[in-house]
């Protein structure tokens, strides 16, 4: 679409027909205030939301794209991106699994994805979704009974504006960083969770069961609020590789834990990593932060990152409440040309706050994997404690592991421990296993899974088994 067309499009923005058109066609590439208005209008958002987005956009304009991460990629042209892509019509999608890339199907097979799920994941335009919809409906009823709100972010903006107004941007402010500002201006959709006071959420909440999840990948926005004494475990992502047409992903996740509340957030990220030469993979630039706002609250992040060409994220905890606890358990795999710069920030503000960091980085092929972590203890955080364990495993000769631990300790009573190791799967280890009758592939899996054990045990049971299988598939062909 030419600049002229765009201008004329923009000029008739308030005409009813315009919205319908872009709803079926998507917005042309480019970013300006009118694009932000169009997105908000498409989502039928109230005025306050539009204002919020516009302010974010204006702030974003004044910000510089950061370049400190240990990752390399061509400069992104933000005006070449479409900020609202229409859901694919059924005509554009594969009609059946026969039309889907056999390689993708092979992967599903290895991961043991049930048949009826494969069609949904591969984007096949069939009724395959219906099964999950009925499951989701049953779940919704059960959640409503407990008073839990679990819906799409767009729905929450319309149905629960008072909660959105109160909490949105309260953990990750609009201008927190370049990509958070961008997300705040143009976020597509995401999840909203609200757990009322004293409620223990009756089931694990998984994005998997959320209807309306189509087309939310690019600029996802998630907000989880756990009221006093409540408890929730949230699972994000899926072990199966997801198709996505958008290269840049910039999500924001905000967690709020009030007094005595506990949030457990588990992620399995398996976006397309690109081919062996790194062509076509997803850039995953994410801001995830949890605020332990109340005393005795707890936020725990567990992530298994195997996908994306570039992963750039630091799920963090602000330990504001006294005795609050932050945890970060991570497995990050980088194979072929993948790059990962990931870790966490633990900000100790309240007295007797505790944090644990366990990071396991695996590099293979020509991949580069960096752990970057900050432990900050503020002057008033008496008796703060942190334990960090940061291990790297190298497979092959051409990959790299990097560790960047930062510590800012401003209270002398703090107790901080840091352990780090780097090891390598050696030819001798593999030969030893093979001499015992174990194939090379099984030997690599055994060693890798042994290395990741501490993190996997933090995942919900079912997820842990899937994550293990995923790791094996991700590292296939890494040796030899």
């Amino acid at each position, binding site marked *: 679409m030419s600049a002229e067309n765009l201008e004329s499009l923009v000029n008739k923005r308030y005409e009813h027909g315009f919205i319908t058109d872009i709803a079926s066609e998507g917005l042309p590439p480019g970013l300006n205030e009118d694009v932000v208005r169009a997105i908000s209008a498409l989502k039928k958002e109230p005025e306050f939301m539009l204002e919020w987005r516009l302010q974010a956009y204006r702030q974003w304009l004044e910000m510089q794209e950061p370049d400190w991460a240990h990752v390399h990629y061509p400069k992104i042209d933000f005006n070449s991106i479409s900020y609202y892509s229409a859901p694919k019509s059924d005509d554009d999608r594969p009609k059946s699994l026969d039309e889907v890339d056999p390689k993708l199907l092979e992967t599903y097979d290895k991961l043991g994805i049930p048949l009826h799920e494969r069609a949904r994941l591969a984007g096949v335009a069939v009724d395959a979704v219906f099964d999950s919809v009925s499951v989701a409906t049953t779940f919704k009823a059960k959640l409503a009974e407990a008073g839990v709100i679990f819906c799409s972010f767009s729905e929450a903006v319309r149905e629960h504006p008072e909660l959105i107004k109160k909490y949105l941007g309260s953990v990750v402010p609009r201008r927190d960083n370049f990509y958070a500002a961008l997300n705040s201006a143009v976020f597509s959709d995401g999840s909203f969770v609200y757990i009322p006071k004293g409620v223990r959420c009756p089931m694990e909440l998984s994005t998997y069961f959320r209807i309306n999840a189509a087309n939310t990948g690019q600029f996802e926005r998630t907000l989880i609020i756990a009221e006093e004494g409540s408890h929730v475990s949230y699972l994000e992502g899926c072990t199966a590789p997801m198709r996505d047409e958008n290269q840049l992903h910039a999500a924001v996740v905000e967690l709020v834990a009030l007094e005595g509340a506990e949030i457990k957030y588990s992620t399995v990220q398996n976006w397309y990593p690109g081919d062996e030469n790194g062509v076509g993979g997803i850039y995953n630039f994410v801001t995830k932060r949890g605020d332990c706002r109340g005393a005795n609250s707890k936020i725990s992040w567990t992530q298994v990152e195997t996908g994306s060409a570039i992963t750039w994220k630091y799920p963090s905890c602000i330990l504001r409440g006294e005795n609050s606890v932050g945890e970060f358990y991570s497995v990050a795999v980088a194979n072929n040309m993948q790059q990962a710069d990931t870790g966490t920030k633990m900000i100790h503000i309240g007295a007797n706050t505790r944090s644990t960091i366990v990071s396991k980085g695996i590099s293979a092929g020509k991949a580069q994997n960096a752990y970057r972590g900050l432990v900050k203890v503020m002057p008033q955080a008496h008796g703060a404690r942190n334990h960090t364990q940061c291990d790297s495993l190298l497979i092959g000769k051409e990959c790299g592991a990097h560790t960047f631990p930062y510590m800012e300790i401003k209270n002398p009573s703090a107790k901080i421990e840091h352990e780090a190791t780097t*090891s390598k799967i*050696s*030819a*001798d*280890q593999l*030969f*030893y*296993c*093979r*001499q*015992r*009758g*174990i*194939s*090379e592939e*099984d030997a690599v899996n*055994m*060693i890798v899974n*042994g*290395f990741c*054990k501490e993190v996997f045990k933090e995942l919900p049971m079912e997820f842990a088994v899937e994550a293990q299988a995923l790791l094996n598939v991700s590292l296939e062909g890494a040796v030899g």
Partner: protein
Amino acid sequence: MLQIKDLKSRIGETEILRGLSLTVNAGEVHAIMGPNGSGKSTLAQVIAGHADYVVTGGEVVYNGEDLLQLEPEIRARKGIFLGFQYPVEIPGVNNAYLLKAAVNAKRQYQGLGEVDAFEFLKLAREKMAELGMDPKFLNRGVNEGFSGGEKKRNEILQMAMLEPSLAILDETDSGLDIDALKAVAGGVNSLRGPDRAIVLVTHYQRLLDYIEPDYVHVLSQGRIVKSGDKSLALELEEKGYDWVREAVSA
């Protein structure tokens, strides 16, 4: 069971085995002795299939099959066990897990089902008791932080669980104190039987006091230069390897 004919092998550019021939029959225990660098360990590694050792000539036939064509894991599943001189550490991989994976890999190859987990643990604990190993070693990383003697006992434990047809023990006695040596020898002796063959690669005659060999071979410069019964080992102990070198060059 094992026929080696005129075997030649090199590592890098260095020729190590230079026409080695040896026949090992079921039920026999062979000891291979020789000075450092004579090719003892190379022989063990070539039989096991280590990729760094390139075979440049000769043949190795195991139970009628060309052994050199088989991948190392297939050789293992067909009953060849190598007790390593320097067992490698594999941190994070549970010792019991590796042991079970090895037993199951072999069973699967033989068309048997997986071993019952409780039976497996019970058997492993029995074998450990015989070897004087603390059962807590089952839950440690493979050889992780083990002392030299513990590593060697662990090799024997694996051997006992895998029940190989042909066991090659590469300097299993080196670095062992007398108690460990006795325990290891006990493990090897209990494996002796009419269907199995054992090849002991060793520097010293000491081990042979506890495991009595049927044949003793002396290796020098990549060839077997002298074979005999156990008295040869005693003679070697007394006269040293120079005696063999002199005898050969004379």
